[in-house]
Structure formats: structure tokens, C-alpha cells
């Protein structure tokens, strides 16, 4: 095979929904064991909200989130509880798994926002304390584990973010961790995320012109060969730590001979929709629009095989997004969650704050519904993509005013092709049980398709001193 053949030859994958993407052949550079599983993929998405939900657990607040009756969920039943936030998901009643009353294993090591949200999808105690109440996570997150085990060419999970990232918050991202203290930053501009997914950067502008494309490929191949040589040479320095080598390895595996490019995938008009919010993507009036665009990108990335897992973070740990409720841009969500005009304990009361909080819960659950709507359009013999994965929303805290680290809501859809029971609302709080979130996440891990060497579902997620293994009552 000629050198040219080696980079021109590419495999084309066809994902659900007829999306084709050209993926480079990097066999020579992909570490053994890091290649994509050949089994039919399962998908996963994790959505993280903050500031708690409007629910009644441990003796405070009105119940405005969960269905009235535990057990079997039906569309009619969910819709009838129209004053509850979960009614937003009525269309997917038979695919849902609602878990009320989950707890964290570890107390907050600092500020409850940081100390909780670092556990929501890691089930780990905190890592580095940055001062000012902020901490990093002490271990990798679920999306990272899934990506490193299942993603083609060890690709990074897709992580997106809704809202502004004020620099004074020091640490806005807290959903996805590569490992202890290594937070993965989510893109908060849908237009940039869209461009990256579609390979629309200026350097990749040769798409559509075969000759120019070939010249670009050749050029990049030369440069990439050079860069790989430099990475290898630097990695060979004996003075480097294991951590340094890990970072260089990540650099190495990030190098691709041609940017993944999606072909014939979307209505051309969609590009305009993404472009339209560019620069206005953190404006209060665009919050729900941005959520819709972000879920659209995630669905596209999953369907095209770019990644099998993704994360979507709604706001920073102390979510100060100003959501629009009743047609009016409200005070920042953190004030509303406290019910007063303050980030602290003293301030003027905000009228109707509990109901506004409930309406924000609805917006956050509509993020999950928006994702499900995009996925449900893509179907094959095994059903829609909703049936072929696990898509979960969780809030970092139990409720707003008290910011408790108990009663953590985990709301998921999708049975992962028969792995999970669905159409269920399990009220652990009412049962006076408090499963640990490590057990929930391990259940999700199996649903996402991560397996042990013997083929059994993986059962080792979370810190070593948390209860491990899945919640067996959730398995089909």
C-alpha cells in the first residue's frame, strides 16, 4: 500500500438516522484495546443541573417535582400530575426510570455547590480544594469512563455547557472529569460546537472539492507525522512524570489525519439557526433556544458515531442563569433557589420563588425531553435511539433553600435495549431507603455498555469506599 493510500483509504460509518461520516484510519496510532467495540453501540448522555429542585424531602418545601404515585408510569398518569415537573416527560412515560431519594456517600468538603456537583456523576469524594469553598473532583466521571472504554480511537466525550462562564467563578465546569482534579471544559457556544462537529473550521474549508481535499489531507498528514515525532521524542524523556506522559498521550491520540466531517446530515437551514445565536448564546432570553441547539448537537454526535457518550451542564455550580418564566426574565436562579435576594442567608424575600423554582425545574427536564425528541427521530429495527441507550438528568442538590446533599434526583430515559426496567417511578425516600449515587451510576455504566473482561456488566464505578455494584431492582 502506498503512503498516499494509507491516508486516503478511510472507512465510512453509517450511524442511525442515515448519517455518514468519514473517519480516518489511524490503526497504526491507536493503542491496542482502545479501538471501538464492534458490537452494536449503546449510547449515553448525562445532564447536570444545580441549586436543587422544588421537592418535599426531609421536612421542607412543597412537592412540585415527582409524580404522586410511585410504581408504574403511564403517559396519562404523568400528564394528569400536571402540577409536577416530571409531567414534562409524559410522552416518554414508558421509557422513564425516576429515582427519588438518592444520597451521596461523602459530605461536602467545601461549599455545598462544589462539594455536591463534583459527586453527581463521579461518586467520588472531592479532590483539590481551591479555596473559597471550591473543590475539584477526586476521580473520573461516568462519561469519561464510558468514552475511554467504548469510544472509537479513545475519543473524548462531547461535553457542552449552557450559560455564561464568569471568570470570577474560578471553576464553572464540574460535570466531566478525566481523573482527579482534571476537569473537562464544556463548550457553551452552540455555533462553535456545531462548527467543530461539522469540520467547518477555516482550515477544513476544502470540503466538497475533492482535489483540494486531497491536497489538504496530504499536507496535514505531513504535519501530523512531524507532530507525532515530536510527541514521541518528548515522551521519551525519562524525567517526565506518569502524569506528564498521560497528558502527552492524550495529545498524541487527539491528532487526526482529517477532521471528522459529517456529510449529508442536516437540513442546510439548521446552520443558520446555530449561527443566529453566536455571540448571544449567554443571553437570558436565549437559554431555552441554546438548550435545544445543544441537545440537537449531542443527538447528531451520537447518531454519527463521533462519540457514544456526552454531557450537558446547565449553568455553573452556583447556577446564576436568569431563566425566563411566565414570559419574564427572572432573577438569577441561585437567588430563587434561596428564595431571597442573596447568595447568602439574609436578603429580601422573592415573591413566588418556590413556584418559579418549580418552573425552572420544568425547563431543565425539558432539556432532557428535547434530547429525547431528537433521538426518537432516529430509528432502526431495535427501536429509536431512545431505546438504545441511557439518558439521565440529575441535580447536584436535593432542594433549593437548604442545599441538602440528600434526596438527589436521578431521572433517566431509555432501557439500553432491554438492560433496564423502564416506565417506573421508584420512591426510595418514601421507602426510607437511601441508595448511594455510586449504585445508580454503576447501573448507568452497565446500561451504557461497559463490560468486564468476562462480558458481565462493569460493577466498579465510584470511590472504593462507596457501596458498589448496580441497583439490581432496576435491571430487567
Amino acid at each position, binding site marked *: 500500500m502506498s503512503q498516499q493510500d494509507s491516508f486516503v483509504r478511510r472507512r465510512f460509518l453509517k450511524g442511525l438516522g442515515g448519517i455518514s461520516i468519514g473517519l480516518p484510519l489511524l490503526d497504526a496510532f491507536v493503542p491496542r484495546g482502545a479501538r471501538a467495540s464492534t458490537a452494536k453501540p449503546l449510547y449515553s448522555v448525562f445532564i447536570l443541573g444545580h441549586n436543587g429542585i422544588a421537592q418535599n424531602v426531609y421536612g421542607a418545601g412543597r412537592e412540585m417535582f415527582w409524580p404522586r404515585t410511585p410504581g408504574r408510569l403511564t403517559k396519562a398518569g404523568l400528564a394528569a400530575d400536571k402540577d409536577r415537573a416530571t409531567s414534562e416527560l409524559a410522552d416518554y412515560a414508558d421509557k422513564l426510570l425516576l429515582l427519588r431519594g438518592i444520597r451521596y456517600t461523602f459530605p461536602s468538603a467545601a461549599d455545598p455547590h462544589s462539594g455536591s456537583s463534583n459527586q453527581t456523576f463521579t461518586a467520588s469524594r472531592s479532590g483539590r480544594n481551591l*479555596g473559597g469553598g471550591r473543590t475539584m473532583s477526586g476521580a473520573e466521571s461516568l462519561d469519561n469512563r464510558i468514552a475511554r472504554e467504548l469510544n472509537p480511537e479513545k475519543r473524548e466525550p462531547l461535553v457542552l455547557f449552557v450559560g455564561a462562564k464568569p471568570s*470570577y467563578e474560578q471553576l464553572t465546569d464540574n460535570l466531566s472529569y478525566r481523573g482527579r482534579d482534571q476537569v473537562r471544559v464544556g463548550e457553551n457556544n452552540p455555533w462553535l460546537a456545531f462548527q467543530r462537529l461539522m469540520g467547518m473550521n477555516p482550515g477544513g474549508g476544502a470540503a466538497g472539492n475533492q482535489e483540494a481535499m486531497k491536497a489538504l489531507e496530504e499536507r496535514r498528514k505531513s504535519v501530523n507525522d512531524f507532530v507525532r515525532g515530536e510527541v514521541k521524542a518528548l515522551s521519551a524523556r525519562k524525567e517526565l512524570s506518569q502524569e506528564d506522559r498521560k497528558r502527552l498521550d492524550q495529545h498524541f491520540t487527539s491528532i487526526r489525519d482529517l477532521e471528522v466531517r459529517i456529510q449529508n446530515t442536516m437540513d442546510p437551514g439548521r446552520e443558520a439557526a446555530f449561527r443566529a445565536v453566536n455571540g448571544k448564546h449567554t443571553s437570558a432570553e436565549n437559554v431555552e433556544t441554546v438548550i435545544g441547539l445543544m441537545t440537537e448537537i449531542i443527538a447528531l454526535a451520537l447518531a454519527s458515531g463521533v462519540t457514544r457518550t456526552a454531557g450537558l451542564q446547565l449553568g455553573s455550580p452556583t447556577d446564576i442563569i436568569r431563566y425566563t418564566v411566565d414570559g419574564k426574565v427572572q432573577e438569577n436562579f441561585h437567588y430563587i433557589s434561596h428564595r431571597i435576594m442573596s447568595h447568602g442567608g439574609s436578603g429580601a424575600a422573592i415573591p413566588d420563588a418556590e413556584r418559579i423554582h418549580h418552573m425552572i425545574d420544568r425547563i431543565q427536564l425539558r432539556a432532557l425531553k428535547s434530547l429525547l425528541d431528537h433521538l426518537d427521530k432516529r430509528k432502526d429495527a431495535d427501536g429509536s435511539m431512545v431505546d438504545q441507550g441511557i439518558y439521565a438528568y440529575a441535580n447536584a442538590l436535593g432542594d433549593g433553600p437548604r*442545599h441538602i446533599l440528600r434526596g438527589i434526583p436521578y431521572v433517566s430515559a431509555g432501557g439500553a435495549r432491554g438492560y433496564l426496567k423502564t416506565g417506573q417511578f421508584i420512591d426510595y425516600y418514601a421507602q426510607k431507603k437511601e441508595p448511594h449515587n455510586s449504585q445508580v451510576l454503576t447501573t448507568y455504566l452497565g446500561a451504557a455498555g461497559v463490560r468486564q473482561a468476562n462480558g458481565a456488566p462493569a460493577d466498579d464505578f465510584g470511590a472504593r469506599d462507596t457501596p458498589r455494584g448496580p441497583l439490581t431492582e432496576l435491571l430487567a
Partner: protein
Amino acid sequence: VKRIRSQSIVDVLALAGALACAGAGCTGQVGEMDDPLPSGETPSDRPSQGRPAPGAPTGGGSTTPGTTPAGPGPGALPPVSAGTPTLPPVATPVLSRLTHDQWENTVRDLLRLPKAPGLSQSFPAESNPSRFDNQGGTLAVDGVLWTEYQRAAEQLARQVSRDPAALMRLVPAQLPDDLKARGRAIAEALLLRAYRRPPDADELTRAVALFDRGSAGKTGAEATAGGVELLLEGVLQAPQFLYRTEIGRAGKELATFDDYELASRLSYALSGSMPDDELFAAARAKTLTASRQGLADQARRLLGGPGGQATIETFHHHLLNLGSFQRIEKDAKAVPGYVPALRDDMYKEALALVRDVAIERGQGLSGLLTASHTFVNARLARLYDLPGSFTDDKFVRVDLDPSRRLGLLTSTGFLSLYAHGLEPDIIHRGLFVAENLLCKPLPPPPDDIQVPKVDPTLTNRQRIEAISGKGTCGEACHSTFINPPGYALEGYDGLGRVRPTDQGKPVDTAGSYRLDGEVRTFSNAVELARLLAASQEAHQCYAGHWLEFLHARPRQESDAKFLADLATRSQAGRLSPLDLIVTLVTSDAFLARPL
């Protein structure tokens, strides 16, 4: 009593608002100055360090070396004067990825561009866990960032190689006619500056091969441009460019950084960018490792230029949270007197004071805390209740009544930032003093605390006292460390205006605070500022922040003795910011890392 698990006290900064208040406070004005920021510069331009765009190259790679002094050898440090405390080396990252700001500055200086390219705006935001956003030891290159680096490299390479003037600035002045030799000369010079050290033979071979591929099939200037374009694309994506590499020469217990590594450490510490040509020449001549004086001379040279000024500004920008002034938001209906333009005004006021005190007067913390003057335009003059005539676009220096106002703690920006609308935010004002000025190690709030309901007719101080003061579960932390400085500042409202009363009662600004191991009392913010300025603890904290900033690492216990010595000198007025910086960048911990 509501039972709660953990009431947030260290949440994001409070920015929204309520009532109005008026007061008097300041007198007189002296001198006049233009807008304290250069024309066209906005506060948001300020966070990154920088120095002016370089002029024509002097050829860092081809500088004739001077006499090579004999250095102390691998693992050995240059001597210090007898009795001088040393700063023990601590583990530092061998690889530090360039932060986005450093990347911008480095690309500008490497390619000798008139200004930073601005391409990092589309890079994924980085989550840098340090106050100063300059610790690259945990930053990595992932798939998304690699794509962005590739895009930027292709764009920059195209831009430079196709502009003859830009190309001339980049390549050595005298180039061989033979294309092969030309490629080698170009690659050697480029790699020296891009990798911030001379390339080894293998690196040079790979670079020349890349140049050759880019120039293949072309002749003359076109071949040079083609080779440079491809070479630049590669170099700008190479880890040797994207990561600062500080390995050192191993001795028995220490690895001492070599001249090129020290040049890079010094340059990134003081200008946030790669070494300039003079620093490269010093590295080549080995004057940086020969003696501490050689390093100190280069540090003073860099600090003497605009780059040094930018360093001092950048440090205070982060330490004093000046960037947050831009995000002060208040409801103009609830906070009479507030207009959005005040955000810029307050930022400019604070920066002008930093420039005047720390740069012009060479004063450090004491000067910042006890300056009895400031810089105002008409909008700010109204907040300070100053008589006289002012305009919105001119800032003038004014003297303040030192019995009412003193230093940055009583400046409008600080007081407006830490407020809920018009109401002072006692907790966050106090937290700023405890954390930023005194480096108090505050433990996290407990998981279960009880917050009593408070009477809304109480004063702000009474409400906070009821929630977190003596007799509550917040007594240990709030009463002792956080609230007292906030109480001292109760005499200023959410726009920094003097407020004599709260809820119809005279504001109570008295309190006590433990400083240097002793409980000190104060009756108001002015007295608190004087106490802080005279405190060893505050000066040690200030020196510790400088250490964190210049060494790009968190403070450690082993730093304490050295910092205590710096604090003693600073407290006595014997250590200007410039001397403090030079001391830190010539310390043992800057010169070596433990093995």
C-alpha cells in the same frame, strides 16, 4: 429555626440591589490626568500579561555569545550572602501547557506580529484552578483544543508565509542560497525561539524534512515561503512549543534549570510570554546560571519596561478581583445613582491607584491600603461627594479625607462589588479581607447548620450577627475571621458612598480582629486599614501571592520562613514591589526543583 444542611456563604459574588443612601466624605483635588487607561484600552483587555510588540529581529539564535562565565554545575545553586534566608525548591511540573493568554503572547512574539492574533477566543475555555490563571501543570491538549490549535496554526502559517514583510521578520537576515542549507538555517532559528532552547539533532532533522516537503517542487522565494508555511504549521502544534519544558540538569538532590529554561521561566513570570532576543542572548552566554546577579539584571531590565508595568498590573488585577468590576450589575431603580458606565469607571480608578502606588511610588501593600488619594471622573466624584468640577471623560487625582477614606478597601469598586444592590455584603467584604489580604485558611462550612429566622427591621449588621455571629454555629469562623472586617466597612453603601445610618440607626463599624496573634480593636474602616497595613500577617500574605503568581504554583509550608522575612522587610517599608519580585525570581525555588 429552620434546619438546613449547609447554607452557602461562599457563593458567587453578590451583585444585585436595593435602597439608597447618601453621605459626605472627601475633600480637595490635586493635579489632573487623562483617562488612566490608554486610549482604546478597555478593562477586559487587561487580564493578560504582555509587553509591547517586538520590533525588527536582532536574531536570538544568531546572537554572538559573550564570555561564558563558569556556572555552579548541575544540581548546585549559586551562593547567597551569609545569613540570607533561602526559599527551598519544591516539586514543580516538568511540563506546563501554555495558558491561552500565554499562547497569544507567545505567538505574537515568535512571529513578531504587531499584536496578539486573538485566535484563542474560539479555544475551549480553560479551567485553571489558580487565582492567577497561570498554572499550566494540569492543562492538557484534548481533541477539541487540538483541532483549534491546528486551525490556528494553519491560519497563522498561511498569513506569515504569504506576507513577504512578515516572512522577512521571521527568518534570519543572512540566508544561504542553497535551498537545503536555507531550510536548515530557518529551521534552526525558528526552533530555538519556538521551543525556547536550541533544538537537538533529531528535532532539527525532522523540522528540516518538513521544510523540504513544503518547498518541494518550488524554487526561489516561493520555495522558502512553502517550506516556512509547512514548518510553522508543524511547530505551532508541537508539544515542545505548546508546553513549557523545565527539566533541569540533575545533581544529587536537585535538578537546576539551565540557562534557556531559566530564561523561559523568567520571561513567562514577568511578561507572560517567551524570552525576548536579549534574554535569549543572555541564555546563550550562560549569564543566567553563572550568578544570581545575572538573573536579577535581566529581571530588572524586563521590569523596567512596559512589560514590568503590565506584570504588576496583572498581579493586582487578579489579587483584587478587578475583572469582576466589569460584571457589577445593579438595578438602577433600586440603586439610585447607579449607571452601567460606573463599572468601567471603578475599574479605571482601581487600576490608576495600583499604577500610582505600586509602580510610580514603588510602594506595596501598605501603600495600597493606606493611600489617602484616588482618581475620579465626574461620576465617581459624585459617589465620593467631592466638591468641584469634573467631567466624565477625564480622571483627576484627588486627595480624600483620611479620617473617612483610606486605600482600596474604601474605594467605590471594591465596595460596590461586595454588596447586594445597595446593601453592604458584610460576609463577602470580610471574606475578601480574610482570604485575599490575610490568607486565612478558612475551613468549609459544616454540613449541618441551623439558620434562625431574622427580624427584617434589624440593621444589616444585626441580621448577620443573628445568623452567623456569637452564639450561633458560625461563631468560630464568621465571628472570628469573616464578619469583623465586613462590620468595619458598614459605613459604605453598595455604591461605596458613605452611609451614616442603617434602618434609622447609626451604623456600627467597630470591632476586633486577631492579627499577628493578638486581638486588635478598630472603630471603623480607616483604622482597620491601618491595622492591616502594619500587620506582618498581611505582608506575608501579599508576598505569598507574589510567590504564587511568579512561580506559577500554590504556596507550600516550606515557603513560610522565606515569606516571613520578606514580610518583615515589606512591613518596614524596605521592600518595593520591584525588589520583592526580583528577590522571588532569584530564589533557590526559582532556580531548581527537587529530584
